[in-house]
């Protein structure tokens, strides 16, 4: 949880760093959300659509206003912030947002974020169909068969499969949906189409993002996503570096890099890692061909940044809240007072601890000489997929205990795949002798350089930077070890439980499962999106029952 929040925050920091326009328009979302919160609470409660549209209009004004403010001298001076300052700002914001009441900030921003999300996805889908962007990227990149790609190091197997992919296997989604799906359904069988439909929608979004990312120039992609240590941060060095990669069909000029930056209203687009700026450039590239032309490109770029920042900030705020409650609960086992959610000092203390936890990871990522996203992302991906393997292991044990061995392979197969992929990836991250892949190999290389009294080594240009690499790789390495050991314990326990259930059944011992007994539904609803003939008949019958006669009287 802490790592997820930190990575999300890091994406925002990377997108807003050195970008006065972005800082202003994303900053404006806070007063807009506060206004919406007050409107919904006191002026017109429950008018969600109305306030969302008002908020959306303000949001567009903030994006356009951001462009004007960034052009003025004072605006550029005030809102031009480096990444460390933004990271600290985000920390303070995260703390305040997590202790404010939900109605004031989180709930209105949730509405705004949902509104934007649906709008962007529908619009981008339309634009892709109308514009039909040309994909110039080859089916297999030159880096596919190698282990030293500049954006993410390591071989395609296993690292492709630990990249968090919406619509594919993801532990984080397993965790979130376990809590939310039961609240969305009218009966248990509907979970099947919620789960499957959710997966399809996620892949739809993922493919849209993929189209946006591969329709921009390949050279541009590498110039944007490689760490500053490789590109050298200026357009000239970045262009030289990208051309030296020997990619087919790539011949990028410094002029194209500065022209693209000017088109999207930024000072530079070199080494804007984290994915959000790349997606924003891709989206702007497609949308400007649909509406507005090059003149509108800066608007579309910041529109995309806004859309990403909005839901990431909501996730950061909500994540901090959830983590705070978990901590309060744990401490509450020893000091009962902490269990009271309304006890201010406890809530504030726990919020501060959780913010400090993700803040430390965030600052580590922001200041990392190797490029924080590039080193933290594998850790995040592996942790996420290990969580997915744990989720599958738990499901395996449940299915086995219920005695449905005929269908056990449906769970066992993906579990085996996930376990092999994540354990291989962890193994390589921990034991690989290649410094670019193995955390400890990198740690040893930098420690040795320090011991030899070198003043710079690899991408770290100062002794302090070298010490930072040693510290960061040690933390990341030990985190990987802890994650994989815990996961192996859970998976092994689940497999043992499965074997025991199978033996018990063969021996004729009745298995005991911990499932709640089935409760017949009190309402009628079809199981899928399209009701079957029999369900339609029942639905018609159900509709004929007067509303106040549908349920048995509870008697209160």
């Amino acid at each position, binding site marked *: *949880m802490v790592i997820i929040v930190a990575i999300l925050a890091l994406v925002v920091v990377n997108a807003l760093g050195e970008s006065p326009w972005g800082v202003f328009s994303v900053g404006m979302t806070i007063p807009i959300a506060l206004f919406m919160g007050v409107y*919904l*609470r006191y002026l017109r*409660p*429950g*008018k*969600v*659509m109305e306030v*969302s549209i008002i908020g959306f209009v303000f949001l567009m004004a903030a994006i356009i206003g951001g462009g004007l403010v960034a052009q003025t001298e004072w605006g550029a001076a005030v809102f031009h912030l480096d990444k460390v300052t933004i990271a600290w700002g985000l920390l303070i914001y995260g703390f305040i947002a997590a202790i404010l*009441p*939900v*109605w004031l900030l*989180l*709930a209105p921003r949730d*509405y705004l974020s*949902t*509104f934007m999300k*649906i709008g962007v996805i529908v619009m981008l889908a339309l634009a892709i169909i109308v514009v039909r962007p040309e994909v110039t990227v080859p089916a297999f990149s030159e880096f596919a068969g190698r282990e030293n790609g500049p954006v993410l190091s390591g071989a395609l197997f296993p690292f492709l499969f630990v990249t968090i992919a*919406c619509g594919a296997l993801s532990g*984080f*989604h397993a*965790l*979130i949906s376990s*809590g*939310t799906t039961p609240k969305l359904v009218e009966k248990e069988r509907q979970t099947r189409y919620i789960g499957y439909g959710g997966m399809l929608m*996620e892949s739809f*979004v993922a493919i849209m993002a993929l189209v946006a990312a591969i329709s921009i120039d390949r050279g541009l992609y590498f110039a944007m996503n490689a760490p500053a240590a490789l590109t050298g941060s200026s357009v000239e060095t970045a262009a030289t570096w990208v051309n030296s990669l020997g990619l087919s069909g790539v011949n990028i000029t410094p002029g194209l890099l500065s022209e693209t930056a000017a088109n999207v209203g930024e000072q530079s687009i070199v080494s804007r890692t984290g994915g959000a700026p790349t997606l924003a450039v891709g989206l702007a590239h497609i949308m400007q061909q649909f509406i507005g032309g090059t003149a509108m490109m800066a608007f579309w770029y910041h529109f995309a940044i806004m859309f990403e920042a909005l*839901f990431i900030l*909501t*996730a950061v705020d*909500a*994540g901090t*809240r*959830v983590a*705070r*409650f978990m901590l309060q609960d744990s401490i509450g086992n020893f000091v009962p007072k902490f269990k009271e*959610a*309304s006890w201010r000092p406890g809530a504030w203390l726990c919020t501060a601890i959780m913010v400090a936890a993700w803040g430390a990871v965030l600052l580590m990522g922001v200041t990392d000489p190797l490029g924080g996203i590039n080193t933290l992302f594998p850790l995040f991906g592996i942790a996420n997929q290990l969580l997915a393997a744990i989720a599958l292991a738990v499901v395996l044990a449940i299915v086995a205990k219920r005695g449905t061995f005929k269908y056990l392979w449906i769970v066992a197969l993906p579990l085996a795949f996930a376990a092999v992929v994540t354990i291989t990836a962890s193994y390589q991250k921990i034991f690989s002798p290649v410094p670019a892949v193995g955390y400890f190999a990198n740690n040893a290389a930098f420690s040795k350089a320090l011991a030899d009294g070198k003043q710079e080594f690899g991408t770290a240009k100062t002794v302090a930077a070298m010490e930072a690499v040693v510290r960061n790789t040690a933390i990341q390495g030990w985190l990987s070890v802890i994650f994989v050991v815990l996961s192996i314990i859970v998976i092994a326990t689940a497999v043992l439980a499965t074997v025991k259930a199978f033996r018990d059944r063969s021996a004729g011992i009745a298995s005991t499962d911990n499932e709640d007994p089935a409760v017949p539904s009190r*309402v009628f609803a079809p199981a899928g999106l399209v009701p079957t003939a029999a369900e339609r008949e029942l639905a018609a019958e159900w509709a004929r029952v007067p*509303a*106040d006669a*549908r*349920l048995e*009287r*509870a008697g*209160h």
Partner: protein
Amino acid sequence: MSAGMALVANGFRGFARYLGGVMGADAYAKYLEHHREAGHQEAPLSEREFWRDRTDRQDSNPQGRCC
């Protein structure tokens, strides 16, 4: 002509209702429906009380978010 307009208006209303459903704007209407069907004796919460209660509940039971 007017029949066509009515059809368009109807379609638009349906679309707005669908969008409202996706956004969670119809929570109070759903609550009223449930309240009626469940046959509670006491009067339902007013719209203002309902939304206040809803956000206060979110305050004490935070939920995670994902993409």
